[in-house]
């Protein structure tokens, strides 16, 4: 059978970028291109160790190589943080739903992210600026624990040069040995800088569960509509195709119906913020 859904495409790690003490970006070259849509995820395998779901952090206009930004936080990711350039890695996918770019066209888009949640948002952002003429504006609000935990430090200045882009950062706290000239506070404090019309604008949220929860609540308070708030519900998406049931949110599968859900679709399910 040619279409084995468990099929693994081998690839090679051709570069590694240490973004922050706990987060690194693997740059992967699969044996053959893996076309995906921004927001979709892949299953990354380390031979004889295991596999886990990760959302690429690179633009979907590039498919011959792929960036995946990963935080060291468990068994598999500990091993991923021990990989070296040239190591073999496996990829299944892509799986799941993507960010609905057609619904963002001609709109002022708000992106709210925190921590490692910036990984899929970088993919979205790079995809958007590839065709920046299609969008009215992009407001990107990014939170991190401390200045050294900020991701994609090298790219921020470049991103800020786009006239349609407003890229704001905040950190929870600034340790005495670090320097910071931008906002201090949790990610949602940046929402007061939002100048776009909440009634018509789409918003995308991705980050740690607590940030997703309060971010969504604050967006609703500002007047954003439930159906315009897109959440990346990253659960334990084990198989990727709605079979293993680890990621179910009520009757919805995070892997198949998501990971990108409009808030209106899942607001009545319990435990969505866990």
């Amino acid at each position, binding site marked *: *059978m040619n279409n084995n*859904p468990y099929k693994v495409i081998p690839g090679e790690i051709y570069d590694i970028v240490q973004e922050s003490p706990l987060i690194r970006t693997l740059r992967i070259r699969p044996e053959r291109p893996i076309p995906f849509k921004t927001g979709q995820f892949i299953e990354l395998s380390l031979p004889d160790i*295991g596999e886990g779901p990760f959302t690429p952090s690179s633009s979907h206009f590039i498919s011959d190589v792929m960036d995946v930004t990963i935080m060291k*936080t468990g068994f598999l990711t500990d091993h991923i943080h021990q990989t070296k350039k040239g190591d073999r890695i*496996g990829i299944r996918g892509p799986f799941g739903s993507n960010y609905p770019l057609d619904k963002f066209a001609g709109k002022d888009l708000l992106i709210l992210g925190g921590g490692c949640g910036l990984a899929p948002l970088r993919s979205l952002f790079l995809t958007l600026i590839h065709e920046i003429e299609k969008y009215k504006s992009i407001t990107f609000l990014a939170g991190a624990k401390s200045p050294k935990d900020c991701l994609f430090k090298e790219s921020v200045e470049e991103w800020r040069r786009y006239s349609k882009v407003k890229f704001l950062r905040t950190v929870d706290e600034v340790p005495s040995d670090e320097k910071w000239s931008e906002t201090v506070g949790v990610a949602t404090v940046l929402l007061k800088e939002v100048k776009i019309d909440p009634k018509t604008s789409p918003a995308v949220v991705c980050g740690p569960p607590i940030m997703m929860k309060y971010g969504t609540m604050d967006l609703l308070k500002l007047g954003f509509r439930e159906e315009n708030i897109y959440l990346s519900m990253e659960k334990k998406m084990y198989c990727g195709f709605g*079979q*293993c049931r680890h990621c179910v949110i009520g009757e919805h599968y995070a892997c198949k119906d998501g990971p990108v859900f409009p808030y209106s679709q899942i607001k009545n399910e319990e435990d969505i913020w866990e």
Partner: protein
Amino acid sequence: MTIKVEMFYDFLQQCRESKIGNFQQVIVPASTKFTTDGQQQFSPLAEDTTFNLDTYRTIDPLKMLYYYFRERVYPENGKTPKRLIVGAKACDIAAMRVLDKAMDNDDFVDPNYKLWRENTTIVSADCTEICPTCHCTLVGGKPFVTEGFDLNLSRINGNYVMTTGSKKGKELLELIGKNAEIKESDPGDIEKQRKEIVTQLERQNKSYARSGVYEKYRSVDMDSWNDNSKACIGCGACTNICPTCYCLILNDETKGQQFTKVRSYDSCQLSGYARVAGGGTPRPKMYQRFRNRYLCKFDYMKSNFNMIGCTGCGRCTEACAAKIDFREVVHNVDATVANK
């Protein structure tokens, strides 16, 4: 069509010896070292196997014969043996329809599952006895098949009445006809016999009556789930033995250059089931996982497959280390809904 019981047994032995039908294996419910008091377990037929095709369902679910507990799925099985499974019960056949929807649909095909199913002919048989946990009639089922079967046997007065339900079943009947004496006769009143078993089931399960308004279970108070799950130790026996549970884990067992994936059963009752890196889990408490199982069966599977995920086999109750009766929990939960 009918066949004498002994003659049918003889036919099975001939199949086993690969004299006819090119079957590589014949599987029947038989008593084994794991069974007691009339219980049976699916086993390969041997010359001296003691088996009973009638009675009630086996202790192990039929799914274990086509959705394996642990199986390499990538690279997939190149081929599977041609098999004849005889003596499956209606609860397992109904469960197979749920699994078929999950494992072989427009969006997804599990290659191994499909191959096992394609190469297996399943002969079902009417229940002629019930066991203490049997309750198919509580979930709209019957102790005999009505759909989704290949060939069915109804035993009466030393004969099997054979009914076909699929192309595979027709082919098998043809094969039986060529190799044994079959007749078009009416050996007795099957309906009366079936009705008698239904009556026994209804009598046995009278005190577990439920409204069947499953869509309301989601709104049941957490306190009720907490009360009902107090005895649960979260071992996962219920889900492993359930004929419609199919949650899986995929392990990477790559050695050398070829990436290798192995799938095994998982259980939503285990605390680590939905835990993500970093330790977060949507259902940290036992009662939440306990509730998930019931809602999965009666609500989520209904939404996903338009079939509820309980076929009334009662194996979960039989397997439960804490002696929790599934019917009783549903009855209690149902009563909470009815009082609202």
